[in-house]
């Protein structure tokens, strides 16, 4: 990221100095922004009063507040251009994405933290009640949630097996082979397919106990009773395999790009020095590939932490919650029990765990990569 700031430094000083903008235009800009802000605040206020039944004038839903926010955003943009001239035009590049993300993330997350502290079951008539940390204490004693967290650890560890396979495939594709493009397209295919369709195709029909080809094959290989989803350990492994099938191509492509960017001379030099293929891999290729590998593994772990749809459709967490990921567990907490308050508490706790974990992971990884280089 440091190099980007240097490119911005190289940008010529072509901006119109702010003092060339007539004061009238500036005043117009300020007035516009002030009016829009007032409008937004007024809409929110009217709506709050209406919803809390102090007032009788208001809107059926909160949607006008959304429109007011959009208008406010537009006014903010126009105001910036009016007040700050070219600097304002530059800010205009960033503003839409920024306002969008803030509205879509910050507000719901804060709201989520509030919901997490309430006792709120959509199927009961009593509505929302603030209950402090009750959900939190309940969470600490919830063996199913702990089990789901433990499963996430296992699922994340499975990434390393996926990494080894993906690396192997990338090496294969990077070897001198015919029909490289064909194999690349074929290997990429699983990533394109909807996980829900995949979980049906593989999980529910290929691995079907009675007549699925995978079960038949397993019987031929000597597994008496190939029930892939009936005991906790095989069920977890089956879920990992399903997920790996979809996402191995993702890591493979990144690693392949890394291999293709590697300079040929280094490998040539290793060969001239008489290194065997095995030595060349461990002494040259693998260390050089480490930065790409770390990026691929971290991105993959981040995706893995969201794992839900395969589990929801194939096992719904079964047998007995053994395959639950945190996401699928919370999904069922909502779907089956409509327990919004408690579910949100679980989600927020998960968010905090993830943020801490990923921050640590990034720190750890950056140190790791630098040491090697």
């Amino acid at each position, binding site marked *: 990221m440091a190099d980007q700031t240097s490119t911005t430094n190289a940008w010529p000083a072509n901006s119109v100095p702010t003092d060339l903008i007539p004061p009238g235009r500036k005043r117009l800009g300020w007035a516009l922004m002030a009016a829009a802000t007032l409008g937004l605040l007024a809409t929110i206020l009217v709506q709050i009063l209406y919803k809390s039944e102090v007032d009788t004038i208001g809107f059926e839903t909160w949607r006008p507040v959304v429109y007011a926010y959009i208008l406010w955003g537009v006014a903010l943009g126009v105001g910036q251009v009016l007040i700050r001239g070219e600097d304002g035009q530059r800010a205009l590049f960033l503003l839409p994405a920024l306002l969008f993300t803030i509205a879509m993330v910050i507000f719901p997350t804060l709201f989520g933290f509030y919901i997490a502290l309430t006792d709120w079951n959509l199927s009961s008539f009593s509505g929302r009640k603030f209950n402090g940390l009750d959900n939190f204490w309940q969470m600490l004693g919830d063996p199913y949630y702990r089990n789901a967290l433990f499963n996430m650890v296992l699922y994340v560890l499975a990434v390393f097996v996926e990494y080894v396979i993906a690396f192997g495939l990338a090496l294969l594709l990077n070897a001198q082979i015919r029909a490289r493009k064909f194999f690349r397209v074929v290997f990429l295919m699983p990533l394109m397919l*909807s996980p829900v369709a995949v979980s049906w195709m593989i999980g529910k029909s290929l691995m079907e106990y009675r007549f699925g080809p995978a079960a038949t094959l397993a019987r031929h290989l000597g597994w008496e009773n190939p029930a892939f989803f009936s005991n906790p350990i095989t069920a977890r492994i089956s879920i990992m395999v399903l997920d790996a099938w979809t996402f191995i191509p993702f890591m493979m492509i990144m690693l392949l790009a890394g291999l293709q960017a590697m300079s040929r001379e280094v490998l040539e030099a290793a060969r001239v020095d008489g290194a065997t293929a095995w030595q060349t891999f461990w002494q040259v290729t693998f260390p050089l590939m480490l930065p790409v590998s770390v990026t691929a593994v971290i991105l993959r772990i981040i995706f893995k932490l969201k794992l839900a*749809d395969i589990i929801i459709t194939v096992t719904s967490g079964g047998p007995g919650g053994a395959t639950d990921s945190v996401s699928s567990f919370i999904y069922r907490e909502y779907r089956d029990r409509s327990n919004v308050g408690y579910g949100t508490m679980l989600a927020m706790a*998960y968010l905090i765990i993830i943020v801490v974990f990923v921050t640590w992971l990034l720190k750890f990884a950056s140190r790791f990569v630098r040491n090697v280089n």
Partner: protein
Amino acid sequence: MSVQTTDYSASEIRSPASFVANRVFIYGALIFWAFICLFPIYWTITTSFKTAIDVTQGHLIPFVDFKPDWKGWRSLGLSPDSIFQTSTVREEFLKRFMNSVITSVGASSLAIIIGSLAAYGLTRYRYKFAWFKNEDISFFFLSQLILPPVVLALPFLVLYREVGLLDTRIGLILLYTLMVLPIVIWIMRDQFNSIPVELEEAALVDGLSIWGAFFRIVMPIALPGMVAAFILAMVLCWNEYFFAALLTSTDAKTIPVMVASQTGSQGINWWSMAALATAAITPLAVIGIALERYLIMGMTAGAVK
């Protein structure tokens, strides 16, 4: 682990015998993995032409093992003999299909527009919003990637009900845009960084405004990157299940939700499930084959320096 012993080039091989062994191993491994990738797809497509008995007896090869039948497609109203008749299932399917198309194209387009603008701004100019500098803003955008869908799902369920966006396509589009925005910004930042600043400087000297320079000079050059980002975003949105399952019920249901809701109810109708799954994966399979180059470009952006 054994795959890692693979050599990089044939020039490393010393004797003809080991050369042949090496080739056999490489192609064997390639074909084996190609089989793993393709077999589930093959199985799904053939199952959609099977009748009940063919499924339960595990027949595999059409015309040899079993006689293909349009049963699965007829139940979707998409077989040759039923395509001109009215079919409620087909209408339902087409509605879901259109929902998927509209939400994924809409969300990808919106993400590309605001994401490219932001990425361009972040690579070319220096910002300072309060104490946030460029690096912090970039990090803010990219950090959205780790936000798991469950965290947003329940608050959005409540908020969408309040603003009347529950079970609407607009609501899904907004959420999907949020979901793919970090990836789009990541790819486009990489793109814009690779375009020399001198081009825009020349354009500015020629009297274009900064927005004029962006639209007339930078955008055409960055178009392949935009296509790459768009396709990757499309794939993610098309396959998304979690938000769609929670936030839609009747009007805005997408294809993955429809696929998932078929299972369970009254035992599985293998043939119709297979037909539905085939229909759900076909569009992306076609895109994947036709535009594979862009997909790879999108996925490897920023990975290799």
